[in-house]
């Protein structure tokens, strides 16, 4: 039998975040983009104690934990700020999307979603109603992609079964 999930709780700040965790690509990395947004609860209030993990499919040449080495890394982690915001500086993924996990107090098992940087024909996107599809599409503004996670209620983000 598998081990059940339990919430990350409110007090992970001394355990999980690490120096440079959100800097998957170093400053000045050619072609680097920023993925940023807010995590919101069912009342539309920001979630100030969430932890996000972004995975692009390849570990890359930069250290996951030390952030040493050249190039970029495909894994990042970011705790939300008091206003519910997060950010990742990253190289572009090889495909149209990155995989995003959200942990928080009150979330008994992390929710899994995808951040699509492009609206392309896609087996997952194409199976969703337009309103639901839109929750997975980041809004581009130059090198910055904005992606909010709505845990519950109106505009609730599409989460994946895993």
């Amino acid at each position: 039998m598998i081990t059940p999930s339990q919430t990350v709780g409110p007090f992970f700040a001394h355990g999980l975040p690490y120096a440079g965790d959100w800097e998957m690509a170093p400053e000045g990395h050619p072609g680097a983009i920023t993925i940023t947004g807010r995590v919101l609860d069912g009342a539309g209030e920001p979630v100030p104690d969430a932890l996000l993990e972004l995975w692009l499919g390849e570990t890359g040449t930069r250290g996951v934990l030390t952030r040493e080495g050249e190039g970029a890394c495909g894994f990042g982690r970011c705790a939300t700020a008091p206003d519910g915001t997060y950010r990742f500086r990253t190289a572009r993924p090889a495909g149209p999307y990155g995989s995003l996990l959200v942990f928080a107090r009150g979330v008994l098992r992390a929710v899994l979603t995808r951040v699509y940087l492009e609206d392309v024909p896609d087996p997952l996107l194409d199976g969703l109603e337009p309103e639901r599809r839109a929750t997975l599409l980041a809004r581009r503004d130059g090198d910055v992609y904005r992606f909010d996670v709505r845990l519950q209620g109106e505009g609730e983000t599409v989460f994946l079964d895993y």
Partner: protein
Amino acid sequence: MIHPPNLSSGYRSTILRAPSRPPVPFKADPDTIELTGPVFGHEEVGAPDADLTRQHAGEPIGERIVVTGRVLDEAGRPIRNTLVEVWQANAAGRYAHELDRHPAPLDPNFTGAGRCLTDDEGRYRFVTIKPGAYPWRNHHNAWRPAHIHFSVFGTAFTQRLVTQMYFPGDPLFPFDPIMQSVRDPAARERLVAAFDMDTTEPEWALGYRFDVVLGRTPMEDE
């Protein structure tokens, strides 16, 4: 269902944070990035990271313990070189976190965070201090049973697991909505470490064994 449901109303914080719609199944194809996960280098994790009693100038107060176990897949195969992270309260039940208001002492010699990579048998090992129970404001007279938070990666992003390890025989189990959010009693038992005489070290520390079993990936289900 082994995992707790999103909405578990006894645990108040779930009420506005649990998604209301069912999760969407996704078809796994060879390009599905969720079937892979980050690879960690041994040079990235040092031996001191796994001994939470030696991260400061002095020794922390409390009952020294060894916590060890294996990270396995559902078929019982070891998951090697995967990252295991732990964090916990100190012996008095206080976290080294600015928002923890429990009026119990901080310990200048204990931060309560560690990490290590599993070996070729999927084994991890931490030396730490037994954490204390602590109150929280979920309901009147709410106390969390003593626990150590675990974060485990596995080989696929869909195996990613954050959980909590409890200590055997804790009288707070029936009163804790977080532990009780796991509905299946047999599944709840998987969250409780076993006291282990083979891990216990003479004249030094009690030992506990806690194995972590990660789920299959969707690809394997097809």
